[in-house]
């Protein structure tokens, strides 16, 4: 009986300390880890969208509460003017959600560019959406009023061969981004004033 109690006590105390140490460490590294994730997962997409921007689009960001989700919005400053905003949306792909960073030119109301951030698509097929820059380049400069879809669906994007589902996912994510932008337009405009 005594041994039994000792076993329970030792394991409990050990787990208690382990939990405490890890909770403390997690709290103290959380912010840094978030920054690293932004830099390495979303960073490349954001930077390629805002190529030639005069600021650091990863550092210049703000968040907006949109219903239940909080959206992080990156800002691209061109010639001293905050012209571009970028945020992430997603579309249903072949292997789960395809995360898409969508850059919008707030002055001309057009897409500044898109970039795939996370995906689970087939390597060599759907994964080309991320690895082949010529596919996402088609989205660059599309006007927001225009229908953003692959040619099969009456749009202007030619799908990656063998990966229509992925191409549709990217297009629907871009369309979603437009809807979100229209919804949050006034809030975004308010926030952008700070970056002048």
């Amino acid at each position, binding site marked *: 009986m005594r041994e039994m109690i000792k076993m329970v006590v030792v394991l409990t105390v050990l787990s208690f300390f*382990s939990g405490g140490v890890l909770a403390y460490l997690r709290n103290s590294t959380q912010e840094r880890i978030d920054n690293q994730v932004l*830099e390495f997962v979303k960073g490349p997409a954001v930077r390629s969208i805002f190529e030639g921007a005069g600021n650091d689009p990863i550092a210049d960001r703000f968040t907006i509460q949109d219903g239940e989700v909080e959206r992080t919005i990156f800002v691209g400053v061109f010639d001293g003017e905050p012209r571009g905003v970028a945020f992430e949306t997603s579309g249903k792909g072949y292997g789960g959600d395809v995360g898409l960073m969508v850059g919008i030119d707030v002055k001309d109301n057009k897409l500044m560019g898109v970039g795939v951030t996370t995906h689970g698509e087939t390597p060599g097929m759907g994964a080309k959406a991320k690895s082949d820059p010529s596919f996402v380049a088609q989205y660059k400069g599309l006007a927001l009023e225009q229908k953003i879809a692959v040619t099969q669906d009456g749009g202007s994007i030619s799908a990656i061969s063998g990966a229509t589902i992925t191409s549709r996912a990217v297009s629907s994510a871009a369309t979603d981004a437009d809807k979100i932008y229209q919804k949050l337009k006034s809030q975004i405009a308010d926030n952008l004033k700070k970056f002048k």
Partner: protein
Amino acid sequence: MAKSLTQEFVKGLWDEVPPFRLVLGLCPVLAVTKSVENGIGMGLATTFVLVCSNMLVSSLRKVIPGKVRIACFIVIIATFVTVVELVMQAYAYPLFLKLGIFIPLIVVNCIVLGRSEAFASKNGIFRSLLDGLGIGIGFTLSLAALAAVRELIGTGGLTIWTDWNLAFDVFGPAYKPFSFMVEAPGAFVALGLMLCLMNLVGKK
């Protein structure tokens, strides 16, 4: 016969070097040795866990009841592995992305548990520290050596540490990479050849 302190340390470097002599912990050995950088990163992470868990297990060896010792060791090891994981995410994110799932898997690496069970639970703190350090460094060096062979033949270059610009194109652009070596089967072949070499040298 008790070994001297130096022997405790040195044995991990040759006599008991984990992947080649004990043939233990092969999962990360085969999986991450695609580049020297990955091998070193994985080795250092494992070394940290080994040293810390060995010391803690050794200092608690009189308190931990025999029947639940494995559970206690796992709690201790898992804690240190999570520490490594968080720190790596915060300070070396690209490396974390490359090593990915293999960092949490250090918990079930039988070298770490094996050292706790076979050594640290029976020896003093300082000896356990030396043992962990020796085995850890031996593990790191063997990962680096295996990775060097695979990367050199498989890609024609060596990446030792990207952040310090230690990446070399050894054979030059004319070399046609034998990419079989950086794929999974190449890992087995390379490991087999290394084992063979180690045994040949050891025989003399």
